[in-house]
């Protein structure tokens, strides 16, 4: 999926990432306990925000613009929420301040310094307009504007309105083990967590009238300017990201139209498991996968991508049943059978568990994105840019995970929302 950012005015709520991946093992180990003062503080602050947000909303309806003091308060809250989420999810290392000051934390959000005039009708129905963004935000970061990602000291997410956040949670749990072991946060998990926090901050800012710009779920736009791309992965998703047209009729019946594919995919999946078992023995003994099985499994993973892209409205045309390369707008590039590490092959299933967890977490975001895209596409006849690219990211990770588990490659799936470098890493 090599593409440049969609060229338009940058979002006024921008993520800032100044983190160096280094983590203090001691603070990582006790992180949830160390954050106890923040839980209390955050709870009190949230109570204050709930009241002042209503006042802010009422004033803004009449004036068309939030008062300066309340605007700054909301900005501080959004920033503090981001800092705390980053600390809890191990996206950032240092202990955050309590005031939500700009520039004080390596994972920060840049917000409009002064309140801007907003359309009154959008202010009036802001909470309704924000619902789709809050759903996506909940699926990624568990944040719904007024709540933090985590509420307990055992990593459990808050319940009720704040019901999602699987991605950030999984990144935090996996990152905890990785940071304790290596003293560093893996880039993929860090980037995925930062992306979730960034989107959550945009959603919060929109809900709290900090900006009237709708949150943008495009991962590239969120991250490309603030962090490096990951190295090139042998399993890549390619396609035209600007192909946003959607047929309303096929969108309406998309699930039903996908049923034959889902049945076919299931049957093929059963065969693929058998083929993967055979491939496991071959790779373990030869150190290199069998070419025929590799082609078969690659076609399966590609077909799976096509079907999910169609089902989840990431692409428009009805896919073929053969997983042929080069015929679908969202396609998969898979390298040939390369030599693989026997240790990685032997313990492939065990090694794949973290990737499976991240993939499961991303599937929540994918589902939320698909449901919202369904409504959007029915009205507009096109897919929203941001959600389309969020979905493409989740599908890319799914394909890389599947490829890893089916021994197409021994390169671990990269959780970073950014596409890998175009040129192979040295």
């Amino acid at each position: 999926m090599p593409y440049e950012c969609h060229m338009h005015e940058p979002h006024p709520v921008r993520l800032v990432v100044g983190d160096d991946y280094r983590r203090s093992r001691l603070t990582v180990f006790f992180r949830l306990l160390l954050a106890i003062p923040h839980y209390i503080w955050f709870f009190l602050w949230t109570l204050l925000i709930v009241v002042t947000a209503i006042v802010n909303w009422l004033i803004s309806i009449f004036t068309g613009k939030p008062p300066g003091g309340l605007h700054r308060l909301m900005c501080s809250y959004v920033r503090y929420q981001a800092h705390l989420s980053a600390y809890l999810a191990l996206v950032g290392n240092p202990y955050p301040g309590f005031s939500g000051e700009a520039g004080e934390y390596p994972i920060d959000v840049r917000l409009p310094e002064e309140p801007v005039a907003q359309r009154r009708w959008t202010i009036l129905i802001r909470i309704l307009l924000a619902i789709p963004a809050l759903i996506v935000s909940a699926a990624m970061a568990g944040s719904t504007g007024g709540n933090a990602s985590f509420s307990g000291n055992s990593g459990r997410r808050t319940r009720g309105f704040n019901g999602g956040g699987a991605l950030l949670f999984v990144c935090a749990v996996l990152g905890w083990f990785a940071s304790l072991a290596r003293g560093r946060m893996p880039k993929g998990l860090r980037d995925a967590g930062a992306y979730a926090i960034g989107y959550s901050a945009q959603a919060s800012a929109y809900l709290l009238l900090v900006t009237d710009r709708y949150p943008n779920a495009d991962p590239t736009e969120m991250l490309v300017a603030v962090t490096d791309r990951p190295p090139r992965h042998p399993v890549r998703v390619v396609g035209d990201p600007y192909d946003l047209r959607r047929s309303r009729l096929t969108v309406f019946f998309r699930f039903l139209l996908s049923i034959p594919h889902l049945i076919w995919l299931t049957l093929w999946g059963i065969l693929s498991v058998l083929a993967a078992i055979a491939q496991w023995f071959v790779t373990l003994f030869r150190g290199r996968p069998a070419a025929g099985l590799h082609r078969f499994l690659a076609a399966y993973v590609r077909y799976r991508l096509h079907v999910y892209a169609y089902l989840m409205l990431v692409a428009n045309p009805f896919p073929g049943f053969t997983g042929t390369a080069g015929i679908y707008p969202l396609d998969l590039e898979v390298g040939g059978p390369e030599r693989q590490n026997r240790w990685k092959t032997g313990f492939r299933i065990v090694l794949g568990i973290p990737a499976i967890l991240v993939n499961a977490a991303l599937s929540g975001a994918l589902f939320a994105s698909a449901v919202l895209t369904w409504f959007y596409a029915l009205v507009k006849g096109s897919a929203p840019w941001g959600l389309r690219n969020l979905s493409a990211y989740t599908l890319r990770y799914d394909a890389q995970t599947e490829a890893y588990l089916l021994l197409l490659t021994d390169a671990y799936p990269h959780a970073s929302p950014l596409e890998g470098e175009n040129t192979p890493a040295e």
Partner: protein
Amino acid sequence: MTRSRAALLALAAVWAVAAWLLWRTSVPAALHLPHLDEHSLFPPDVLHRAQHYSAVQRLFWLGTTITQLVVLGLFARYGVRWTRESAAGPIGTGMLLGMIGFALVWAAELPFSVLEVWWRHRYGLSGSYVQATVGNWFALGAQFVVLCVALAIVMGLARVRWIGDRWWMPAAPVFVGLRILLAFVSPWLLGGSSFHAPYVARLQRIERVHVPVRVLNGFAEPNAFATGLGPSRRVFLWKPIVDPPFTPRMDRFVVGHELGHLAHDHIWKSIGWYALFAFPLAFVLAVATRRRGGMGVPEAIPLAIFVYVVLLLVELPLQNVVTRRLEAEADWSALRATHDPVAGRQLFRLFASETLEDPSPPGWDYVFLQNHPTLMQRIEMTEAYAATASMRPRRPRSTATAGPAAARPVGRVG
């Protein structure tokens, strides 16, 4: 006479012989059905309700059918434009077009489905708006799967170079094979609980059909059916038919009817008729789509679906003639097995009050919609049986479970 014409004649002769063999029945040819007056058999209010209810139901059927034809006609004309929504190659694109056609029909028929539920509710019959909308949505998904399998077979054969336009020759046997497979497998998929009644074993002995009789839950209407081939043969009773107001005598008649289907190999005969219709139907479809490039190209699919639906509509009266004959034979078999025309008569009378089936529908309804003999015809057969046996309607010999045959509603036994 050319060779092809001779072959065609030979095929027609084979078809006619096969049809004659399948047409044979155990109902005496000389059986004379007495003419009965429906007003003497049904209370006026029951008759009025059934007739009024059925009259509007007929309108719904007409509306649905016309809508279906119009939508598919337009789809045949303009449906090709949806090929651009596919990246699936010819067969996959054909599948997509087929599914879109069905989806459009579903959407157009939705108001009728909802109206029908409303109409049923007005008459105190069961019906669910959720089932009529969301439930139908899932039914549409099942249709899609069947359609895709069918199109994969037809288009796959049509795209084989040495078969081409003659795809109908191998396709028809394939579909017949699938029908046999489905008939064989489906009874095991239906489940149900065992039905134990003392008369079952006796009926099985009389009909010489020793098959399980099972009860299916989850249905609101009284009904029953027989299905399966060889070891998978089963009789299924919908739960309401074994509950009051139905009496054991009526149930005995119902079981006798269903065993009669199996005793006279009606499942095989149905498959035989299906095969006889499948060949000409597929042939006409092949000819009709030739101008659009034949069934091997997706552009022909919208037209093919339209033609197929029209053919089914044309074929419907013929199918109904066949099924009415099979049902009549099953009724006759039940009468001979139970020697209880009274139970049969009461059973059929109950249909009118419970399912609001019109005892004697108008001619066009009879031709297009009645795949069973009318209630009046069925009651007349019980009278004819009583007369033929030179006996008055009497109580059955097995009285162990036979309660009073109170007039209570029954579903459509088929």
